[in-house]
């Protein structure tokens, strides 16, 4: 589904991504791990079109997306959760979620003449998703008034609502309490059973090993190992990258 080929991105003298190649399969949860500064988030930014690669290709269902803008990549079916919380702070939770459904809201005349009515289907979906994260009473609360954990959950369901073929989650459980962490793990497993394809960055090893089908380990901008969780756990190269000599 997603194929990264010899991807390179340099920031001045820093080789953030240096000849990185990997592939992710459909209907699987693939985790991208590595020490801080390994280039994981840069790879995410390259895939979602926020930055452009210096060299290499990103093939999404056979199409090279490495030169496309973020909105085009999103509309091809890549939905992304950021490492830092990203919500429209002055909009309510419901308004934030509504923006993720489709792009009918960008059609001026359709909206001006009231032909883009909020469908019951959308409202039901929002309600169901908020119930899933136990935030059904927060629908009309502004995003800026939510706690960090609540913001993370709203972002997560927004990423899921956003039409996609591939979900990319950058540290979904960073900074959230153990209870929410477990709920997110359950949610990801459920998504996988529903046939979702997920690419995940996460530092929490227990979480990552628990939910992933495949793990790709990055260090200094390149892939140093990949395999099933049990293979990665005992890989000496991986241990060295994390623990040093």
């Amino acid at each position, binding site marked *: 589904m997603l194929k990264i080929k010899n991807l390179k991105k340099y920031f001045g003298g820093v080789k953030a991504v240096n000849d990185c190649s990997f592939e992710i399969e459909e209907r699987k949860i693939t985790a991208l791990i590595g020490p801080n500064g390994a280039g994981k988030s840069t790879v995410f930014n390259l895939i979602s079109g926020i930055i452009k690669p210096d060299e290499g290709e990103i093939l999404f269902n056979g199409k090279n997306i490495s030169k496309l803008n973020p909105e085009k990549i999103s*509309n091809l079916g890549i939905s992304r959760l950021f490492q830092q919380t990203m919500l429209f702070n002055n909009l309510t939770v419901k308004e934030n979620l509504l*923006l993720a459904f489709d792009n009918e809201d960008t059609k001026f005349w359709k909206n001006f003449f009231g032909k883009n009515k909020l469908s019951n289907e959308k409202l039901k979906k929002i309600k169901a998703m908020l119930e899933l994260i136990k935030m059904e009473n927060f629908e009309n609360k502004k995003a800026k008034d939510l706690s960090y954990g609540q913001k993370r959950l709203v972002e997560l369901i927004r990423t899921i609502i956003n039409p996609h073929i591939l979900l990319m989650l950058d540290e979904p459980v960073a900074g959230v309490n153990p209870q929410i962490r477990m709920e997110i793990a359950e949610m990801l497993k459920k998504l996988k059973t529903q046939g979702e394809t997920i690419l995940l960055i996460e530092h929490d090893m227990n979480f990552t090993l628990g939910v992933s089908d495949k793990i790709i380990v990055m260090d200094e901008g390149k892939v140093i190992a990949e395999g099933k969780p049990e293979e990665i756990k005992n890989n000496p190269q991986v241990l060295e990258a994390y623990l040093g000599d």
Partner: protein
Amino acid sequence: MFSAYLIHLLILIGIYLILAISLQLAVGFTGLLNMGHIAFYAIGAYASALLALNGFPFWVCFFSAGILAMFFGFLLSLPTNKLKGDYLALATMAFSLVVYAVLLNWTELTRGPLGLPGIPKPKFLGFSFSDNLSFLILTAIIGLISFLIIKIITSSQFGKVLEATRDNELLARVLGKNTFKIKTMSLMISAFFAGIAGSLYAHYITFIDPSSFTLLQLVPVLAIVIIGGLASLKGTVIATVILTLLPEPLRFIGFPSSIVGPARQMLYALILILILIYKPKGFYGKIELE
């Protein structure tokens, strides 16, 4: 005498209201700190005046003013679309200065500093809006329609996309929104209404010259937007009334006109500073000024 003065003030409130709510659309709702709004107002005023002086009927002048300003809004959005905050403010300010310089120096068309006198009062469907009361009714109708249109836009899902672009453009793009198009449309709509406000002004005063469209003229309009509160149309209406009426007593104190003009600007600046210190969101603002 007093009623004539009151009607005059109400007409000015109407024109300023159109100017301010259209700036609110760009600044408050879309987050585009457009300092070139007066240029659109000027383009509208000159386009309407020149067409009227060449015998075109009022409604042609009026809509042409809006459409031409909108076209310039589109042109301005092309090089400035990737700019944000201070950089956008500076670029749009430069646009305003360029338009002012053109009005001043393209004397064959604009008569430069001599201005355009004798702009006819509007006539529409055989009815002439030559007295101030009828002009007030016209301004009120156009002001109300403008307000309703901008209200519909900002209350719709499209309005939420504008606000999303303001709050976090990168996120809006990652959700698949074409923010280039969104920002361009916002600036074009904003410019259209500034253009028709300019047309009303030209046909009301019946004389325009470049001095009516300096960057300084932006101060009261921007003050209305900030004092009323960003992304609040209700606040904009209230602030328009207050800020148009507030400097009026200065006229009766007996100061010479050379002092009254700068005193008005100082008053606006003072109110703006006080609001920013004590009520940073303005009267009814939904977001804080960054």
